[in-house]
């Protein structure tokens, strides 16, 4: 379970989050819905450990992960993965290397790594894309590679920051169905950020709306 308790965050003295309280249960599909500038992405970065709260606490599985001015648990110890809005695929690595990066850092032997990469690529429907360079992929393929990279480490929590916003409507619908299916199969907690109400309703088991840095419903 993830708990955000009385969180305030500001950048350059500009309040971004104000008194945010949020509990996210295990295996939940929570969607944060709001317009741009409402603070949704900051909530994700707070959970991931990239943003430090000015006030309040963040708990992950009962452990204090961040508190006022401090990050107590670094990002890689939180068992959290993230699909960024711009996907953040490393342009100098091919698809397989992008996905295998985290496994390599963990010290997994090469053969095991290759098998795992192959399995996850099959899961997202990109069996033959391993050797392709990132710039050779279409928007939808890139999105699936980013998803595969996030899932390959079997995280307990997956954070997704408007990952489908740049895709055409038909592909958007197809991929959100795939995301829901994968979440049900693998059983991770999903925290999904969007400004699209239809997308929110289709994905979420619970929708939380944000406005001007506050949770409004």
């Amino acid at each position, binding site marked *: 379970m993830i708990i955000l308790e009385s969180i305030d965050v500001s950048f350059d003295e500009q309040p971004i989050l104000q008194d945010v309280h949020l509990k996210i249960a295990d295996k939940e599909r929570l969607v944060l819905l709001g317009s741009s500038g409402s603070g949704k992405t900051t909530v994700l970065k707070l959970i991931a450990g990239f943003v430090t709260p000015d006030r309040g606490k963040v708990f992950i599985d009962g452990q204090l992960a961040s508190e006022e001015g401090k990050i107590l648990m670094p990002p*890689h110890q939180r068992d959290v993965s993230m699909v*960024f809005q711009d996907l*953040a695929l*490393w342009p*100098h690595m091919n698809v397989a290397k992008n996905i295998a*990066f*985290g496994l390599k*850092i963990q010290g997994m032997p090469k053969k095991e790594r290759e098998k795992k990469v192959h399995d996850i690529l099959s899961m997202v429907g990109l069996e033959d894309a391993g050797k392709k360079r990132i710039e050779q992929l279409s928007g939808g393929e890139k999105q699936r590679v980013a998803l595969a990279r996030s899932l390959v*480490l079997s995280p307990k929590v997956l954070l997704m920051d408007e990952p489908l916003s740049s895709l055409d409507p038909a592909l958007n619908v197809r991929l959100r169905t795939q995301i829901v299916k994968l979440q049900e199969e693998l059983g991770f907690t999903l925290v999904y950020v969007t400004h699209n109400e239809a997308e929110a309703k289709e994905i979420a088991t619970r929708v939380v709306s944000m406005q001007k840095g506050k949770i409004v419903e």
Partner: protein
Amino acid sequence: MKERTLFGGVVAFLFVVGALPLLMMLFGSLYDNGRFTLTAYKVLFTNTALLESLKNSFLLALTVATASTSVGIGLGILLGKSDLRFAKFFTLMLVIPLVIPPYILAFSWADLFGEWFFGFWGVVFVLFTVYLPIAILVTMLYLRQIDPHLEEAALQMSSWKKVLWLVTLPLIRPAIVFAFLLVFILAFGEFSVANFLRYPVFSTQSFVYFSAFYDFRAATAAALPIVAVVAMVFWMQRFLAETKMHFIPASLMQKIRLLKWRLPLFLFVLLIVMLFVITPLSMLVFKTNSMESFLEAGEKALDPLGRSLLFAMLGATLLSVFGFLSAYIIHKRLFRWYRWLDGSILLLFALPASLFGIALILFWNRPYTNFIYATPLILLIGYLGKYLALTTKITETKLVQIPQNLMDAAALSGASWYHTLWYIILPLSKEVLLVGWVVGFIFSLRENTMTMLLYPPGSDTLPVYIFTQMANGKASLIAALCLIMITATLLPLLFLWLYNTARRRDA
């Protein structure tokens, strides 16, 4: 090892290499036999020749900076923002005077014009051609940062002439200020051209006090106004010309269509290239006169050239590595006082090489550091301190363009700071590292003033050898030596250009 521990070590090393010798020199000038005294500084107020040379330096720097910036901005716009034919080729040609040792150009022009070229206007002309590329390149760099929509919006209401004046030029105002200040600083501290063309400037004074009288306290005092001017100009630059360094792809830039002006402007730029680049180089070829001169020069220059290339390669490697590390520290703001590191690196670059050379002698010329002072290591330390700003700034242009999300994604995959550095940042920066290496190589190779002060016996470099030959050597031999030097300097640029062309073709 923790990130801050390792990089703290890097900063400490750079402090010893660059700042500490200068600080020691400054303190040394304030003490005589252990007692605090300002007697050495009396020279600043009592020596009329020194005050005259200060006035000369100021006038020279102002004239060169005004001329280079005015012409450079115009050429920068023409080469970087219009559909001028062969713009890339012209840019490359115009950069040549910047990368070859300036005294070679002085030698060539003086040979062409004779005795009347010596003096103020001769120095102004040579330094103008040397620093013109700075204004051109800085303008082109800033033009690449203009959001094309800003000009497109204005173009719906007006012609390019007015848009340039009312939109483009105000947007690149920081480039104008930055180019002017940079050229001013470099011209203010210039030594070799003024020395060769016999024009008394301030930077030669500290050199004379040190080399002729070995009075380092007076040398330091004489250099103080230079340090003050450089520091002041950098302080001003912080407020006036903060670079954002977010580049728009060249293909998205709004280009000026020259239409009927295309041919006249092409001929105009061609004329400038012929005058400022081809003429002095042709003069050298003409002066060399025969194949024998080349053979003689080749024979005599072989050892110094070999040493020059070796030192330049080692210097370039050090400059690339430490340029990357210091850019990383500055970009990531690893320490609260990162601006001090940034400022010190820039200050060292802007200070006259003679001053830094003297500081290094005073600091390292001790029995227990003889393994550095009496070996080429002292030259490598000199190159590192003097030119670190170049490779640091070049690397920074790339680091600011690597999205933070790429690093965050690595962190979530379990990567520590050194994994991120090794697997993400370093591979993404490899092209700027190569550019930095080439720039470091060229500047280490062409360095002359500091090397003359520092080189250990039997380790003279080609620029030093040429400079000593200039005093009383045969003109044909000197011209041939200069051509060898120019070839050695331009070859890596050619390789870099070929590499980039091949890479673009692959892409």
